[in-house]
């Protein structure tokens, strides 16, 4: 009764004709979307199913079948016993390394981005536009072009292969996107607000911490999601800059799966893969709309 797909069909059709066609195309629409949803879920489904199976069961080779029994041993082994080379500490080592990298990197890169975005949006000074352009272009540089010289610079500073080193790298590489994100957000704030606060005697930092940050909750959440998933999912920077003792989870995962010696344990590999995917997946499923907003704001930046 409600015409809830209203801009659907031209008036040229009779109502009955239109309804019949609409019904047919509605079915096609739902078939298309359901088909796509099923196809999109298959890889995750197979990973999870495989991780719960025993190796003999996997060799029978019906990847879609449900596991005969809920076998958690692959998960336990992936977490605490899987080997990378000679070390058999499991993925938990990489997980805690990733956490140690993630927390300071996220906090610092958001703070840096917010401060820069605020300075660029609300405080006019010469060359602001040039700074913005230089930052924005930085987001387009393929990492491979600058990695080797960066390694040289970081070795010179004794930061190469250290925890502070990889954190600094993440903050630096997060600078373009974070600054743009906050600049665009603060650019929409009336300049009069800052002027009024300055008349009242508030300085640059006081306005930032007492006025700007409290009204930035939404954009802070978006930034938090972007940086958390982005840094957790990073592989290349962790591989090159973190050093052996701080290898993030993604690097360790790839070592476990692709450089495994002896019998390949697919169930352990898949449990390890799911474990690594779990934190960003959790962020994604919990954050919902904010994740999409993050994508959109990233897109606006280019």
């Amino acid at each position, binding site marked *: 009764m409600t015409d809830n797909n209203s801009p659907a069909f031209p008036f040229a059709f009779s109502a009955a004709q239109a309804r019949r066609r609409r019904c047919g195309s509605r079915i096609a629409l739902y078939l298309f979307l359901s088909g796509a949803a099923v196809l999109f879920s298959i890889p995750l489904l*197979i990973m999870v199913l495989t991780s719960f199976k025993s190796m003999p069961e996997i060799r029978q080779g*019906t990847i879609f079948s449900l596991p005969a029994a809920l076998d958690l041993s692959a998960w336990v082994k992936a977490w605490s016993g899987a080997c990378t080379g000679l070390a058999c500490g499991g993925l938990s080592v990489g997980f805690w390394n990733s956490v140690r990298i993630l927390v300071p990197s996220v906090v610092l890169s958001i703070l840096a981005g917010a401060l820069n975005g605020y300075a660029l949006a609300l405080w006019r000074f010469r060359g*602001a536009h040039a700074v913005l352009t230089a930052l924005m272009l930085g987001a387009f540089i393929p990492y491979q072009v*600058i990695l080797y010289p960066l390694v040289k610079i970081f070795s010179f500073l004794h930061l190469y292969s250290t925890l502070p080193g990889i954190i600094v790298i993440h903050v630096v590489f997060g600078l373009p996107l974070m600054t743009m994100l906050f600049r665009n957000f603060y650019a929409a704030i009336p300049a009069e607000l800052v002027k009024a606060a300055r008349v009242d005697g508030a300085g640059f930092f006081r306005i930032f911490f007492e006025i700007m940050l409290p009204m930035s909750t939404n954009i802070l959440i978006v930034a938090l999601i972007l940086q958390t998933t982005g840094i957790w999912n990073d592989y290349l920077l962790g591989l*090159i800059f973190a050093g052996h003792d701080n290898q993030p989870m993604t690097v360790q995962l790839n070592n476990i799966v692709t450089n495994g010696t002896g019998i390949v344990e697919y169930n352990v590999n898949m449990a390890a893969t799911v474990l690594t995917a779990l934190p960003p997946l959790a962020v994604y499923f919990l954050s919902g709309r904010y994740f*999409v907003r993050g994508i959109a704001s*990233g*897109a606006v930046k280019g």
Partner: protein
Amino acid sequence: MRRHKTAEFVIVPTIAVVFICFYAPIIWTIFISFTRSGMFPSYSFSGLMQYWRLVGTERWHTAFLNMFVFGVLFVGFALILGFLLAVALDQRIRFEGFFRTVLLYPLSMSFIVTGLAWQWLLNPAMGLQHLVREAGWDNFLFDWIIRPDRAIYTIVLAAVWHSSGLVMAIILAGLRGVDRDIWRATQVEGIPRWRTYLSIILPLLRPVVLTCVVLLIINVVRSYDLVVAMTNGGPGNATDVPGKFVIDMAFERANIGQASAAAVIMLLTVIAAVMPYFYLETRRTGR
């Protein structure tokens, strides 16, 4: 005036960091690509020597060509699929939130995870091929991931799975911004809905589509993780890409000259791909 000084005080370190970490390394890499550098950086100028040698390297040919094969197919399929999904979601359907969540979740996972998942799924001995054969179709063949001439297409498949949701989300946001009056007008004129999408909405969304293209192309040129996790460049060098070529040359083969020359070509590719976008953007907003 003094307060402006504080703002500059915040910005100056940023400028320094951006210059030291982004632009100085680019200049250094470009410079090194014109020198004799081998295992160690050397500062003796050698003209285009590194580039000639690169052009004569078979592995580079494969990598460079793969970037275009992968790029064209990945961007093409991701755009088409993403656009169709966005249009489908825009039809005021039920469970829109559910569909959107399912179609976008791959984007939250890393390329390493994506690659390892698809490697498992496409593994001929254990994965899809095995499954279909067990189901009765004995000579079913889907071993692309181990075939040098086909493996690159499996990477396209995994990448499209990972990134179509990105296109869908961005275009859906664009569709939601389209003026309702346009729909009313086309309805009155009796223009079929699909034609409206193709001839009116799509041109209207050109900036949005362009943004998608740029984002996808940057991922193509940078691509490294996905290839490493799925095939590690193999079989042989069949799925090598410039991003992997540069890293291998710089950090495993210790050939800084070749790594730099290849990196400069990557940079030029990005510039060539992104230039038109900037041109259109400035023309659109510069008025």
